[in-house]
Structures are given as C-alpha cells and as structure tokens.
C-alpha cells in the first residue's frame, strides 16, 4: 500500500517485503463450502507461506476453481476461516476490497474487458483503485506488457487478439495491481502448444522474482519446474500435498496414482 505510488524504476520488480509475523500469506482452516445442497469444499486446510509457489491439480469438478475463488472472496464460504495477508475474510466490504487489492487473479476464461483496449484493461484498476496518475499507470502497464512479450498489442481490443495473447494480457492486468499474491486458474487451457510454452515462461519468471503464487494447472512440466508444493484435489477435498518430485515419482494415495497414470500417457 505504501509503495503504491512509486513507479518501477528499472526492469526489476522491488523485492517483496515480508513484515514480521506475516510470513503466512494465505491460511485456510477447516473451510467448508456448499452450493445449495451440494458440498463442494470439505474441510480444506492449507497454509501458504510468503513466496511459496503452489500448484493445484485434480480432475474436473473437484473444486479447484472454487477454492481459489474463495481466497479472494468471489465465493463465500460457510464454515471455517480464511486469512489472507493477515486479514480474515468476513462480510465486511471494506476488508474484502482491501484484500482484493493485494490478491491478483487470472481467470480460466481471462474475463478481459472487451470494450477497453489492452492498455486500458491494464490501467483501469491502478487508476481507479490505486488512484495512480494515468501516465504512471500506463508506464507500469507497458512494463508488464513487455514482460509478457506483447507490448505491440497495447492499442488493440481483446477481441482482436489470439487466445494466447489474451491469456498473457490477463496476467499482465493482474500484475499491474502489484499484488502480493497471485492466483492462476488454468492459465494454459485452450492454448496452442507453442503458446503454452510462452505463458509458462512468463510465470516462471514471475516465480523467480519471489511472488506468492497459487496455480491450478495440469501442465506437469510447470509443476516440476516451478512449484514448491503440489496439491491434488478430488471431490472437494485435498487428497495429497507434497513437494513436486515426491508427488510425481512417488504418489501415495490411490486416487492420485490413478490420475497421474492417465495424464502421463
């Protein structure tokens, strides 16, 4: 919050400060969630340390997206507690806004604003939420667009970009808010093989800068290369959680074994 007005001086992002006592970025304790009668999330316990990079995988419909969306309160949970960046999520609108400012999200379907240009998509939040001067916001946006290798598309509208390019804009847009935590929901679904590679490279470079990341993906290459921990979900529960090498080479749970056997065909 305090450094919100400073502009990025060089190509390097400032290192993430870790205030004392706040080394835990996200903590979910006994979280349950229902959609009507349907029990989607069951007793989720998860502690993400600052700077940690977590990959979440699991079959379709297992509740991965739901969990991620609970973290920035796009969905409400009914039981248990979620603490993000030291603030517990309640119905208090002020706090939710505060947290959303610090948590970036990159949607499965991008959700770019089709009526705004790429640049405007990226500057919207910095200008209206961070009250950043327009010029600074644009500079910042161009910085991140360069980072995802599409600065030349800044003036176009989302509808004019290919899927891969849109995906990268979504990432840049989230980064422009300089969030402390990033949530990615299947950032490479529906992409060409060549594009998959580019997007993953962007994320790897972010990871190298030490950002806290939660990423739903099935790109196991990415998990191996970047993650500190892999979480496997099924039927609304965390089934297994392990560091990548152990997870892939030596899955413990039966369900995990079955899933991995099908992916690595």
């Amino acid at each position, binding site marked *: 919050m305090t450094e919100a007005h400073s502009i990025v001086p060089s190509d390097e992002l400032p290192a993430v400060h870790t205030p004392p006592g706040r080394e835990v970025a996200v903590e979910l304790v006994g979280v349950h969630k*229902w959609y009507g009668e349907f029990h989607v999330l*069951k007793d989720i316990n998860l502690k993400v340390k600052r700077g940690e990079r977590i990959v979440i995988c699991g079959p379709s419909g297992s509740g991965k997206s739901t969990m991620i969306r609970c973290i920035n309160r796009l969905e409400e949970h009914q039981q248990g507690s979620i603490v993000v960046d030291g603030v517990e999520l309640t119905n208090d609108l002020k706090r939710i806004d505060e947290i959303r400012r610090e948590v970036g999200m990159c949607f499965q379907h991008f959700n770019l604003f089709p009526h705004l240009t790429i640049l405007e998509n990226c500057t919207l939040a910095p200008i209206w939420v961070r009250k950043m001067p327009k010029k600074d916001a644009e500079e910042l946006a161009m910085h991140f667009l360069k980072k995802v290798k599409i600065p030349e598309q800044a003036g176009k509208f989302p509808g004019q970009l290919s899927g891969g390019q849109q995906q990268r804009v979504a990432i840049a847009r989230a980064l422009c808010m300089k969030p402390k935590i990033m949530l990615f929901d299947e950032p490479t679904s529906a992409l060409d093989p060549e594009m998959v590679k580019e997007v993953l490279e962007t994320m790897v470079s972010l990871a190298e800068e030490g950002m806290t990341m939660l990423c739903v993906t099935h790109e196991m290459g990415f998990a191996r290369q970047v993650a500190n921990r892999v979480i496997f979900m099924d039927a609304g529960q965390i089934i297994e*959680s*392990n560091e990548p090498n152990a997870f892939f080479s030596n899955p413990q749970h039966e369900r995990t074994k079955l899933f991995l056997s099908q992916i690595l065909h």
Partner: protein
Amino acid sequence: MSLTFDDGTFIRAQMQTPLPPPRRNVGVIGWVRQNLFSSISNGVLTILGILLVAWILPPLLRFLLIDAVWTGDNREACLGAQVGACWPFIKAKFAQLIYGFYPSGERWRVDLVFFLGVALLVPLLVLSWPHKRLNSFLFFVAYPILAFILLTGGNIGASNFLLGHFGLMQMVAGDASVAGLRLGFWLDFLITTALCVAVAYLIGRLATGSGRGAATMTAYVFAGLGAITLLWDVDFGLERVETRQWGGLLVTLVIAVTGIVASMPLGIALALGRRSKMPIVRLLSVIFIEFWRGVPLITVLFFATYMLPLFLPVGVNPDGLLRALVGVALFTAAYIAEVVRGGLQAIPKGQYEGAMAMGLTWSQMMRLIILPQALTLVIPGIVNSFISLFKDTTLVLIVSIFDFLGQLRAAFTDPNWATPVTLYTGFAFAGIVYFIFCFGMSRYSLFVERRLNTSHRH
C-alpha cells in the same frame, strides 16, 4: 484422519462424506437482516420504500373498496361528497363492455367463440400438454375460420374475385348461382388459380430449374383459400351481424389476437428480408420496417380510414374492422421484425455452419435451427410488442369501432350515470381489465423463457 508431516506433506487417509449445509441464514430474522438491512444505506432505502407503499396504497383501497358504492340503479346512488368508485355503473354497462352492440339474442355465439378460444389456447400454452401439432392446427387454422363464421354469421356472398373486377366474369356466368353459391365467382376463382399456378411454375423454373415445387405450393395456397371461402360462403342460417355491431372486449380481443397471430410470420419474414444478402429485398424490407416503425398508429389508422379508400379501385370499400386489423398487424409486424432481427444477430455463425455442414437446405436450416433459437432469445421483446399492441387497440375508436375503451367512453355519455366519479370508476375498471391481460402475458412469457432456456439446466 489424515497424515500430515512437518514439511507440509499431507495425505488424506479417509475421504470425507458430504454434509448437509449449515442452516445459518434461515428464519425470519436472518432473511430480514440479509435482504433488508444488510447495510445502513440499504436500511434507509427499505424504510423509504415502505413509506412509499404506505403513501400510495390506502387512498387507492379507499376509493376502490371502502368508500365505493355497490348498489343502485342510476346516478343518484353515486352522488354525494365522499363517494368512491360507482360499481353499479359498471354492473349496468357490463354486457356492453363485453359484447358491444352485438344483438343480445346472438350473444351465445360470442360466448361460444370465447369458450372455444380458451379451450384451445390453454392446452397450447401448457407446454407439457401433448398433441401440440393437432392443437396448433385447430387453434391457428380451424378456430379462426369457425370464429369468423360464428361472429359474422358466414354467408359472405362472395361475388367478385380477380377477374370479376375487370368485368370479365359477368359475361360468362352472369348471376347464376347454385345452392346459394355464385357460379361467376367460382369460375373466376378457378381461372385465377390456374393462371397463378402457371406463373409460379414459370418463375420457379427460371429461378431454380424446376417449377414443380413453386407450382404445387401455389396450388395448395389457392386450394386452402378456396376451401375457406367456400366455408364462409355457405349459409348456416345464422343471422348476419355486421362488424359495426361488434364492440367491447370482443373487438379488443379480436384485434389483439389477430394482430398477434398475423404479425408474427410477417415480422419474421421482414426480419429475414432485412438480413438477406439480396440488396433489393433488403432495401424493401428496410423501407417497410422503418416506415411503419416511424409513424404513430393513430396516423396509420387515420390513413386506413380516410385515405386507403382512395388508393383502392372505385367501389372497393373494405370493412372498417378489417382496415384496422390490417393496420395494426402491419404496424406490429414492423416492431416484431426488429425484435426478431436482434435475435437472429445473436445466433453465432457456428450454428449456421453446423447446419450447412449437415446438408440442410436454407429453409430447413432457418426453420429447424436458427429461428427456434432466435425466437426463444427474444421472447421478452416479442411480448413487449404484444403488450403494446394490446393496449394500442384502444386507438381503433378513431375508425368508429367501439373497442373495450370506446364502449366505456360511450357508456360515459349516458346522462343516467353522469356523476363525478363515473369516469374514475370506468377507468379503474378498464385499468384492471387491461392489467390482467397484459400482466398475464408478461408472466407467461417469463415462464416460457425459463422453460425454454436449455443452456443452464443441471
């Protein structure tokens, strides 16, 4: 339950079973909290809203019920300082408001038409009722013919068809008639049919290489036309009731229903025309739509009454109600066309391609794939148009047709019921009647919209 290790490794040993959701937000207080007073501004709005209702409702109830007069035979009953609605007035005029000046001995015919209409419409509207095909046929084809015969008395005395206008038929057939049917007319009809079929064959042949389809189509159309005319021409011994004597709700419903039924196909055709790739067809459609959409219905009806006769051959003077019907139908068709066009635009190109790739012809594609989806999408818009149409029927008073409101206005002129509250009572009653019909349409459309929405049903 599960194994957790220090390094964050975690393996679930036992799967959790689904639990029922917690009942936290139930109960009256919970509901009130969540829906009414979730924040200060919300609370203020709630209180303001309740005040608004408290301000409007009581005087309305007082006028309609508490202070209202319920019995009486003439104006004397409804005079006085603090009198509410004068219901005896409505009671006295009720039959007129429904039937107009329809002869009282023949009103059973109107009742029968009403009854048949409801009996056929209800199963059509209940989506799960079977036999939709038969039902539609009965309602859209058989019912109008029957209603026409019942309401007018049939026996139209068909005398002139196309050739008759040029005085050609008289020479051949004279005035001879068999069983009340004029030979001249039917001879004329047959010759015209033959001519039209031939022309259709030629055009079809030129356009598509084979004229057979076009020719049989035309033949069918004429056969249908002939059958209907024949039915209408038969004398069933019913007394003739001119449309001039119709009135009240009967006229309102006749205009509204005919307008709705006739404007749909016309509107769809216009919408397709406007999206056509053929420039002339498109231009004609655009001109037609923009013209009718741009002028008030009042002037259209004016036009139909005072100017249309000028544009028709001397002596041709269509029935006043018919003129109004045509005017209303064309007017509504233009609106429907625009609404449908919106729906067509919303259908993704992929649907067209999917249909084409399967080898469907253009008309099959439209009928089976595109229109069902487009029309479902724009149900709210269509119903909006219908609601407008229903209310706009009041304008036919200009053409000296006494619809429901016109009949009410005529009732106002009765000095026996002239009181200060007569007007308000009449309008309150008319308001309730219009509201019932329009609200019914609006709700039904909502229901259909939800029913036909196949995209998110889990």
